[in-house]
């Protein structure tokens, strides 16, 4: 599964990767030649010399073969898997390294921090609200929740982010407009500063995200509340609260877990973009900046890592689903 995804990604990126590699070889050869201070009699001679050098370099790296040749393909696969992603043209990590791996690994914890925290909060709120409106199916609350889910589902999360910045950073100065903390990472107060800066993006993602969650939870819980065994529990005198929040929720778990994966998937792109809006120092922000600067190594590296994270999430959801519902075998 992961392998086929990787194959597809490389197939998509192969030619671009080659182009950027050849470009970087061109640049480095030209610089090398100009530093050697060889005098040429004509521009033709210079060009010939450089061309020969470039040709040699390309051969030694193996770029003379197309990206889909078995040897190159295998190499690329190994390179990408070991995160050997080349050097960035215009970005550096805080330690000054321009290796794509270092830059991305420096940003990744921030992305994971924001994304996981918001997912946990969203799922907690979503489960509770969903179960609550399910127990009152057909009420005003139920209808408000459904309407809210439809509305928030069609709103781009990054746009809500911009509105939140306008409301809470410009109109009312409660939160900072840019979420990159000003203190240095070595400073002990850095963690607190980071969390404070995380609040606004977090609130935004949760606000937009929990509606559809609650909607799905409600959908499944309502289905289960109509089952006979729940009726039996009611007649046995178990309190309604316990039935809804304990018995019904537990039995609705398998489909809910699938939806977790799906909703993660749906909010994934939005979460990347909202990093750019809030200037949160994660991979999404890096992505946005790299696209603006046409820094291909970074774009390719981030794409690859985001894909891996995503595929792993879906994969994990599959396994969890199998755990909750043993009837399903994980393929």
């Amino acid at each position, binding site marked *: 599964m992961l392998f086929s995804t990787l194959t597809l990604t490389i197939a998509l990126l192969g030619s671009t990767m080659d182009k950027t590699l050849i470009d970087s070889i061109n640049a480095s050869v030209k610089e090398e030649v100009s530093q050697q201070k060889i005098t040429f009699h004509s521009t033709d001679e210079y060009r010939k010399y450089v061309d020969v050098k470039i040709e040699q370099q390309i051969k030694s790296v193996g770029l003379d073969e197309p990206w889909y040749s078995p040897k190159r393909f295998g190499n690329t696969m190994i390179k990408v898997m070991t995160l050997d992603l080349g050097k960035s043209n215009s970005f550096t990590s805080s330690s000054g390294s321009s290796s794509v791996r270092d830059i991305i690994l420096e940003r990744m914890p921030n992305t994971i921090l924001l994304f996981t925290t918001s997912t946990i909060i969203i799922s907690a709120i979503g489960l509770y609200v969903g179960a609550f409106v399910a127990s009152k199916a057909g009420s005003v609350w139920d209808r408000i929740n459904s309407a809210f889910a439809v509305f928030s589902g069609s709103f*781009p999360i990054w746009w*809500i982010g*911009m509105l939140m910045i306008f409301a809470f950073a410009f109109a009312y100065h409660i939160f900072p407009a840019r979420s990159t903390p000003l203190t240095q990472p070595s400073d002990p107060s850095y963690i607190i500063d980071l969390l404070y800066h995380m609040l606004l993006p977090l609130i935004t993602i949760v606000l937009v995200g929990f509606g559809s969650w609650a909607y799905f939870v409600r959908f499944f819980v309502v289905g289960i509340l109509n089952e006979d065994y729940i009726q039996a529990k009611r007649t046995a005198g178990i309190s309604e609260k316990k039935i809804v929040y304990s018995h019904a929720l537990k039995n609705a778990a398998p489909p809910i877990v699938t939806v977790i994966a799906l909703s993660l998937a749906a909010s994934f792109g939005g979460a990347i973009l909202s990093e750019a809006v809030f200037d949160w120092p994660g991979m999404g922000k890096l992505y946005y900046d790299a*696209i603006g600067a046409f820094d291909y190594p970074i774009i390719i590296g981030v794409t690859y890592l985001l894909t891996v994270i*995503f*595929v792993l999430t879906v994969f994990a959801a599959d396994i969890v689903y199998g755990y909750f519902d043993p009837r399903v075998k994980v393929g």
Partner: protein
Amino acid sequence: MISRRQIVEEFRRSRAGMAGAGILAVLIAMSLYAAIAIPLESFRQWNNPNYWVDYPRSAAPSWTNVGILGPKAPQHIILSYPNDASVSRSSLNGINLVTHTYTVDFDYDSYPSDFMLPYDVKYGSTPPILQVDVSRPDGKTFRIYYFSLPPSQSTGGNEASARVFSSDPKVSENLRNYYGDFKYQQDASRPEIMIFSDLQHSAVLKGKYMFKETFYLFGNSDAVEKSGVVLGGKVYGLMGTDESRRDLAIGLLWGAPVALFIGLTVSIASVLIGLVYGVIAGYKGKRTDEGLMRINDVFYSLPTLPLLVIMSVAIGRSIFLITGFLVIFGWVGMAKISRSLALQIKNLQYVEAAKLMGQSDIRIIFKHIIPQLLPLTFASIAISVPAAILGEAGLSFVGLGDPSIPTWGQILHDANSAGAAASGVWWWVAPPGFMIAITGLAFVLIGNALDSIVNPRSKKI
């Protein structure tokens, strides 16, 4: 199976569905209005800063200027020949005089930020002279400019095409002659203030101003091609302008047909592909099914946005390519649904009968199974439009949209790059996102209403 008339009737009864249809009608009206009434040039030149020089920078919508909330900020005024000018001609000693008069009703509480007078004159050999007089509401007339026009640099000889700016030293020089009219100290280096000031005390003089631009033409074939008055203001138009002076109302209007095109093309194409793909997998079964569904699974577990980004970086950014990219990721869900339905339908007796009659598989699929799924297909098309619109908007937002056309996502990209939200330029941020949301919402409402009619399963709960 429900008949078409029943579907229409039930849809009419669904309030959410009708609301969605209403929004869609408004969007279509916007698209038609844009196509008919707005010059196509504004669509093509959206990213060309030269096209927008006459417009103000980051001006708020003019309806914010109601005057109840505080002082009335000056409106940005653009007047140009031939629409707004009253033209008179005379001749004096063989010299042709052409006068363009522009009337400005100035009743705002603060001064214009600047002004410019664009002109374009074609002439034979002698450069024409431009004389500008401003008649004020109090009867005074200031001659602010009297000079022979320099030949234009860009077009070579025999054409004078440029602008007189309020910061032009010749304007201040002329205005110095009127210092005596004022009861207090005036400053001729700020002509936009001096011209619009009261003579008695330092305040705005409200009323009708007339800008008389007289061209002295020395050849018989000389002609004034262009003239005008641009008064710099703080508010402009229905939706204001952005930092690169673009009129946001025009961008928002053009965004409607683009969004509808992308949304509908992508969803129709991907739903149809998914439908045929899923039905083939479900009907054929066995190994075909297994293989097709494995491919489906691969696409299912790919993150859309990063791959969209990489494809537009690697392949191209034209709107048709982007549409194609979105289709690549759009068909997956429909394939799953139609496969599971085809599995049910293929065991129905009439399909079995068709098979026994020796009809070919293709014929059975297209004649007997797919028609059964058509109502569901329409619902799916409507439901999958928002994803396509959001996908394109997201791609535009990271800066990878089609650079040759305005889209809502691109307007938001520009706004985000300029930090519009943090600097309070709300009219640049709120409307485009609202349009994206409302367009998505319209299709979701329509889709959900259709779905609950044609899909009995979702009706139950």
